């Protein structure tokens, strides 16, 4: 059967004009869209207000849906754990007794650390939490990796603040609305976090790849080999992320960088804590007045032509 594919409206002048006007609107609108796209490419936060306004509406919907989803999603887990509880109890007891010695040692080390820091009168910068909220939704269809946080500027969230999950670093705030904020996740292709290796403190950069992993790149010119098992924590360089937060562990050696998996897995993420930027950018300095030029010293300079070899 041939469906009525053609849009030709017959002899009606009005319908013909309407159709033509539709094409004019579509062509003009696509030009406008191209301009908007170019503006967004040049200045990404340009339309943050519009996005934040829509996110204000969608965030409560997402958080309500996630509550319902968690309620249903918890059912198989609780049924399974009912059967496996005996074995798990035994395993946990063994783990507890194994780790007791380690725990005592860590406690004494912590005490000693505090005492030494007091002795040195070390001024510690404490990362203050701003708010703890849920991550409710994310950019599921886009190749960028954004998540939406259920708290915004009314709760004190500002762009550039680090977001930390229970397992490690999650990302940082990109745009804020009154009650919602957009978070740039670590696995986004444009996210870069300065990290250091826990074993020897070697600095590196954790750059998102876009496919759920991060690249660990060496900062030094000599390519350092990052092998499986290397653990990286944030180094605090750059002033956004506080130092010592677990970021990623290397799972595979790559050709020029180590492939690493982040500790905070974005799918399993529930609550996230927003902290103040570790060392916020200082206010812009006043432009220094150009110092008066020193009078040039009367210096007899040897003419370069005299010492130059004549023939090449």
């Amino acid at each position, binding site marked *: 059967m041939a*469906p009525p594919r053609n849009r030709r409206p017959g002899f*009606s002048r009005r319908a013909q004009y309407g159709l033509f006007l539709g094409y004019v609107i579509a062509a003009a609108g696509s030009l406008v*869209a191209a301009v908007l796209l170019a503006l967004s*490419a040049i200045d990404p936060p340009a339309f943050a207000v519009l996005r934040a306004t829509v996110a204000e509406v969608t965030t409560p919907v997402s958080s309500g849906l996630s509550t319902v989803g968690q309620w249903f999603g918890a059912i198989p887990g609780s049924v399974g754990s009912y059967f496996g509880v005996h074995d798990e109890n035994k395993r946990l007891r063994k783990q507890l007794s194994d780790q007791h010695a380690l725990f005592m040692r860590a406690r004494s080390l912590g005490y000693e650390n505090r005492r030494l820091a007091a002795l040195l009168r070390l001024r510690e910068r404490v990362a203050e939490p701003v708010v703890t909220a849920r991550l*409710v939704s994310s950019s*599921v*269809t886009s190749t960028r990796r954004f998540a939406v946080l259920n708290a915004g500027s009314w709760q004190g969230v500002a762009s550039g603040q680090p977001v930390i999950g229970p397992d490690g670093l999650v990302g940082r705030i990109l745009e804020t609305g009154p009650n919602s904020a957009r978070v740039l*996740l670590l696995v986004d292709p444009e996210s870069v976090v300065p990290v250091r290796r826990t074993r020897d403190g070697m600095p590196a950069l954790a750059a998102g*790849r876009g496919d759920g992993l991060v690249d660990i790149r060496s900062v030094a010119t000599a390519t350092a080999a990052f092998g499986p098992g290397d653990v990286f924590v944030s180094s605090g360089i750059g002033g956004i992320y506080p130092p010592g937060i677990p970021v990623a562990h290397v799972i595979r050696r790559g050709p020029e960088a180590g492939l690493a998996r982040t500790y905070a897995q974005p*799918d399993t993420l529930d609550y996230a804590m927003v902290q103040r930027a570790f060392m916020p950018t200082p206010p812009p300095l006043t432009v220094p007045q150009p110092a008066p030029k020193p009078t040039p010293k009367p210096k007899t300079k040897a003419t370069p032509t005299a010492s130059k070899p004549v023939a090449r």
Partner: protein
Amino acid sequence: MSQIRGPFDEPPDTSFGRFVPAVSVLAASTFAVWPVIAHVPLFPPLGLLMLLGWRLSRPLSLPVWASLPLGLYDDLLSGQPLGNSMLFWTLCSFMIDLIDQRIVFRDFWQDWLIAGGSICFCLILGRLVVSPLAAHVDTLLMLQIAVTTLLFPLATRICTMLTREEETV
């Protein structure tokens, strides 16, 4: 108010049914707020899928400029920059209009092929616009295109279902 409508023109449609295609595309775009924190882009762009379903199975259901406001809504919800879906969806509907003029009698497989081409066009251009070229998202993008293309028959099914319901009511 003068009577512009001629004696043989159809009376304008005033039922609620004329909004069903647009509302279904908006609802499909709204699936982007589903509470999942994805770390790979595998979720198909359902708004584009429904738009293609309507455009290819019922060509007169949406005006040619409809992809502009629908794309604007999709841009505000998906993480893409503003103007991305507006531009690429409109270009897609222009291309389908051109194909309509060339190949008038088509079967479903050809429609599916056209939909696949449009999905490739929108997703690949969207990836080029938004992510740096060095990002390792291309394999996943191919998978996303495959998933979206395979869902196209479902989209046309839903379109048919919605129209039938509308006719019986």
